[in-house]
């Protein structure tokens, strides 16, 4: 079975380490905050100028001046810091964020990512995504492995306009967890019940399959 959105978030959360500063993009990456392992403290960075994003507010706490980068009302956790957009992107571009998790339309075997623009469709803008992928050393891309029509999104070369070049080193899809290294995808783990053959079939880019590909496990 392909992973659910929640399972994808759970799997990404296992990559969190105690003391990490983490930026989570919109969509599945946002869900990762719900699965931070016990005993681990991470600080969530929101690029509109908040380090230490807390939970959604109660009705009483609701404050128009307190939002995240998705424009949702949020709170600041104890020990949070708030600052300007320039300061926020200084920490992003300066490589101070330990882990960035974001979605993508396509990635390729050179670590290129396309996530912001589909020519011919309405273009809303890249927001902070180009800064995030250019500034981070440690990025996990979350995406579906293939389109609804079965076309692979893990390519030899991205077809859509890029968000960043040569910047992605890890990808979690609904079928597999992969690394990108030396011009190839390396299959590290597969979703429960998903065969290596299916992953091979749905990966258009160069794929290296080790002898043993462990199956992910999830608590019920």
């Amino acid at each position, binding site marked *: 079975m392909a992973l659910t959105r929640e399972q994808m978030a759970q799997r990404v959360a296992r990559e969190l380490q105690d003391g990490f500063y983490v930026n989570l993009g919109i969509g599945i990456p946002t869900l990762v905050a719900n699965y931070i392992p016990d005993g681990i403290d991470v600080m969530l960075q929101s690029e509109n100028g908040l380090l230490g994003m807390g939970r959604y507010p109660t009705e009483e706490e609701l404050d128009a001046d307190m*939002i995240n980068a998705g*424009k949702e009302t949020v709170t600041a956790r104890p020990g949070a810091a708030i600052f*300007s957009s320039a300061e926020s992107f200084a920490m992003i571009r300066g490589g101070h964020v330990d882990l960035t998790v974001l979605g993508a339309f396509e990635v390729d075997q050179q670590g290129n990512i396309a996530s912001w623009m589909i020519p011919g469709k309405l273009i809303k803008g890249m927001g902070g995504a180009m800064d995030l992928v250019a500034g981070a050393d440690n990025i996990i891309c979350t995406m579906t492995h293939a389109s609804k029509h079965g076309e692979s999104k893990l390519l030899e070369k991205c077809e859509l306009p890029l968000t960043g070049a040569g910047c992605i080193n890890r990808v979690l899809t609904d079928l597999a967890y992969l690394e990108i290294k030396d011009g190839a995808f390396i299959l590290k783990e597969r979703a429960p019940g998903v065969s290596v053959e299916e992953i091979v079939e749905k990966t258009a880019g160069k794929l290296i399959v080790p002898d043993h590909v462990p199956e992910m496990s999830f608590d019920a």
Partner: protein
Amino acid sequence: MAGFDKRVSSYKEAMEGIESGMTVIAGGFGLCGIPENLIAEIKRRGVHDLTVVSNNCGVDGFGLGILLEDRQISKILASYVGENALFEKQMLNDEIEVVLTPQGTLAEKMRAGGAGIPAFYTATGYGTPIGEGKEVRVFNDRHYILEEAIIGDFAIVKGWKADRYGNVMYRHTAQNFNPMAATAGKITVVEVEEIVEPGELEPSQIHTPGIYVDRIIQGTFEKRIEKRTVRS
């Protein structure tokens, strides 16, 4: 005005001198921390062919979105322009020129403009459509593109508290682009929720020192929430 007293008594006075064809830099992120009354004054004045520099362009009927209703904006630099049907329509009809700019690059363009730095190199956008046609240089084996600074004829800013001298503090994440915008206007106008006497604000807590600020006005704010999310 006497000495360092930057206060003006009306929004009309606050935006005195704005003309068609000018560049206006606006603070705010989404609808958070936007100078809503200064935007309304620009609408009232009917100036047009404006170039607007702002992370977003408001929503239909609020924020910078109201300047679209009478087609007052001819060009905008922004990082994200979703959530606005009128904007989409004008963009698709080529009635508005949109220069999509990565969010960090946009903040840095304002910061550099205010700091007298004409351009800067950044890795953001290299190898993407944003980097096309821009100068590329390699430093320490990485590629960087040259991005130019922005200066506005006007900068419009929303603060929380200010003193008469134009020293400004922002509240929570309503800070966002406002401090950079404040530095990058030939004329910088700040509207705040409260104006206090000099000495009441702790000097080390001031976000925008008064030297950047030309006019200050106290207003009342709707502070509309774009995405209301609460936990039960």
